[in-house]
């Protein structure tokens, strides 16, 4: 699959860590759609924004958690991922900067194609 073909792909997220995230929000699955992708990064628009610690997160930035894995491998198998949940809407990878991610929250989990 090309990066372009990932756009609008429906995915689900199950959150493993922090454990306390599951206490407040449950572990999921949380559903979303990919809005941009390259080999290293997926941008997700969550179908239903996640509310955690009083803030609402509509966007997820997904990166492979393990060395050698690629974010785009979700086309063939679930991906162990580091996910930054953002409290603002970001649609393209070019918008990701330390400033846009500053208010984000990191979780670890699995991202899977639906």
């Amino acid at each position, binding site marked *: 699959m090309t990066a372009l073909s990932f756009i609008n792909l429906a995915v689900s997220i*199950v*959150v*493993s*860590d*922090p*454990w*306390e995230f*599951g*206490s407040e929000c449950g*572990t*999921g699955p949380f559903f979303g759609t990919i809005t941009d992708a390259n080999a290293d990064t997926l941008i997700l628009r969550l179908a239903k924004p996640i509310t955690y610690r009083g803030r609402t997160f509509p966007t997820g930035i997904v*990166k*492979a*958690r*393990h*060395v*050698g*894995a690629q974010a785009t491998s979700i086309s063939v198998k*679930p991906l*162990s991922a*580091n996910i*930054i949940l953002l409290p603002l809407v970001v649609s393209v990878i070019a918008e990701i900067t*330390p400033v846009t*991610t*500053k*208010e*984000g*929250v*990191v*979780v*670890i*989990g*699995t991202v899977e194609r639906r």
Partner: protein
Amino acid sequence: MAGSTPPLQRSATAGLWSIALRVIVALAIVASGWRVANSAASVYVNSGSGSQSRAARGHVTCGTNVAAVMLPTFFAKSEPGSASERGQVYCHVVEPVGRKDMSAYVAVPGHRGTTATATGHTHVGGAYGDRLLTPTSGDGSFVAEEDLKATGGTQVVERAMSRAELAATRETGLLRGGREGAHFASDAVNSSATRAQQRLALPVRPEVRVRLEVPGGAFTSPTRVGPLELPGGRVLPGGGMERTATGRIPVRVLGVDDL
């Protein structure tokens, strides 16, 4: 002088003997494992038991046809060391190590595939984490690849977690309290909370390191954790090894260390 060896020939003969002697000594050293014992080769062996705190010292033996030497300095290490040798070795923690020295290191010769059992001590069930150790590719470090099937079908892993998760784990007898999602665990979690967070690229600082006995084969082979860029640009370097499992994993808590 009649019958004596000319000086030049005598010198050459002595040189050859010297070389031969060095070769013989080198081979003998390799065969005994001594060279490896004094090299960078070291292997992490999981240990883990509630009785560990009773012993101040421990040692590791390996199969009868494996020449391994335990050096005191290896006890001081807390992470798998690099190794120049390749191969597999079945090692067995005969005695528990001190509570602060949960990680036992052994020198490993380049020996392949032995399944010899340690004599006189059989901790079937993974109380001390019998392991088949194999080298990782690339950097030469060693990790416990999997339990030997014959040793009871359990393995010991460690997980950095919060006290709340520990309480749920104890209450349910299940990894992560039985919650859905992938379970991540390591063979060896660093004893420093900061270091554990960095090496395992954890989003929050862990509070405890918990040794868990889990069914053998529940986890994947270890995978190296990549760097994690935190919000705002700070990067946790990763580099630690972790295994992954899914489903409801029954566990037995073997030990807890505050981080």
